[in-house]
């Protein structure tokens, strides 16, 4: 299919629609509050980095980013560690209850987090995981592990069985085969899965906010405190918002060529 002028115009228009609200946030983050509330300007008249300075110099602000990063990384590590062997089992073997188990896992991806909010809070408080990074990381496993198993299973099913059989005939044990041969073969699949797990843990707020109070509070929850007695500090709010977009942008850059396949859950 060739690229025509009409198509190029259409896609440019859609991307403009995607970027304009983000541009507006970026624009606002470089303005002073008096300019934001004064006249509407399409770009900052008095360019300022003061809003970002507020965030980077106040530990109660930037610790939010650190907290989010810690629980997201923990979540990615835990999820991949348990999901890789499980996905291999689902893609290669039949076992008692496999279909039921797979479906049950999926229902957890589909469960509205609001349903689990209160019991989660009580469960995690009672075992001392409340307001810890590990607690949030474990809670996010609820929807990330099923997703990871699902995507990885799709990628693993794309590797022919003969690869496994040849390796066993050559005398490889299962752990050596899995680590040395199989995982490198699906590394793009693992990358994409890691990206998705990262993304869903990064964007989720309801559980993360409910399960934390001070020590592990995510940045997205800290943002709400820009609403002060004197009204909303729009500039700082915008700057904080812009900073939450950057990690995702960095990660998507690395998996850009595989992202579409990942969105199709490895099933294209």
């Amino acid at each position, binding site marked *: 299919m060739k690229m025509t002028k009409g198509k190029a115009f259409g896609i440019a228009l859609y991307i403009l629609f995607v970027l304009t609200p983000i541009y507006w946030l970026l624009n606002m983050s470089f303005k002073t509050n008096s300019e934001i509330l004064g006249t509407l300007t399409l770009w900052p008249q008095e360019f300022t980095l003061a809003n970002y300075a507020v965030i980077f110099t106040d530990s109660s602000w930037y610790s939010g980013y650190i907290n989010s990063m810690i629980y997201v990384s923990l979540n990615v590590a835990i999820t991949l560690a348990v999901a890789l062997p499980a996905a291999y089992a689902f893609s290669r073997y039949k076992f008692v209850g496999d279909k039921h188990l797979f479906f049950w896992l999926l229902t957890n991806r589909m469960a509205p987090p609001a349903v689990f909010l209160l019991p989660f809070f009580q469960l995690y408080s009672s075992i001392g995981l409340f307001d810890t990074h590990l607690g949030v990381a474990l809670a996010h496993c609820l929807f990330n592990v099923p997703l990871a198993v699902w995507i990885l299973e799709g990628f693993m099913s794309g590797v022919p069985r003969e690869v496994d059989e040849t390796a066993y005939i050559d005398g490889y044990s299962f752990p050596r085969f899995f680590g040395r041969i199989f995982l490198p073969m699906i590394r793009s699949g693992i990358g994409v899965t890691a990206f998705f797990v990262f993304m869903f843990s990064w*964007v989720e707020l309801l559980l993360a906010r409910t399960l934390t109070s001070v020590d592990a509070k995510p940045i997205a929850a800290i*943002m709400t405190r820009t609403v002060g007695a004197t009204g909303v500090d729009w500039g700082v709010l915008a700057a904080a918002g812009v900073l939450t977009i950057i990690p995702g942008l960095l990660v998507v850059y690395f998996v850009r060529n595989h992202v579409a396949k990942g969105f199709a859950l490895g099933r294209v």
Partner: protein
Amino acid sequence: MIKTENNKAWFLVLPVFLLVAFSAVIPLMTVVNYSVQDILDPNTAFFVGAEWYREVLRDPRLHDSLLRQFIYSFSVLAIEIPLGIGVALMMPTKGRMASLCLILLAIPLLIPWNVVGTIWQIFGRADIGLMGWALNSLGVDYNYAANPGDAWATVLLMDVWHWTSLVALLCYSGLRAIPEAFYQAAEIDRASRWAVFRYIQLPRLKSVLVIAVLLRFMDSFMIYTEPFVLTGGGPGSSTTFLSQTLVTMAIGQFDIGPAAAFSLIYFLIVLLVSWLFFTTITHMDKSK
């Protein structure tokens, strides 16, 4: 793929099973427990049977939010699926431009959900937001905080902005999987653009579209954060969807019994849909 029978595979699945059981089964059983009891304080609880279920099923607030939820989810699908297919068809097929488009389209998906709400909250305000300001200076009386119609339009527009990229990326990957030979054959037959779309591209997109429809349905069915930040469910309760009703009930008013019964009904609806989803997908995998 032919799979071998091997029950030792359970050992590979066990960690996942235990981890998910810990964070799913225990909370779920707690909810079931709450839904049949009247808990006055931690030491006094009465078994009330199906009382809470009856109460919840009669509650007009829930009927309203369920209706709103269905209207919302179906509107989301009706807009995002065709638009997503359109965007995917317009995307460049290879090279740097394709990568650039992929990254730019993926941006909304990577923004924390409350920031999405914040972005649109700012963008739609008449005093400081570009869209609100532009609409008002064009003479449209637009105010999402006071007018239910505008609030709906804004929440829908926000969802379209947020998630159409997902549909587009899915369709894009589906389109890339169509062999070039199909298009060459169509060219020899002098097939029209529409015929190419209708008889080559659309049938080939079926599997990704099923994923897209169901993911969008389910995720829009549990939407909470974005409308909560944008409109707080208002004006009135015009944009209060199921999850928000539930959170208000469980945490705001602490009506644990009815909230638990409501949770289970909510979960059952989702379960029914995900079962349909799962069987459709496994059915398609088989027929391949």
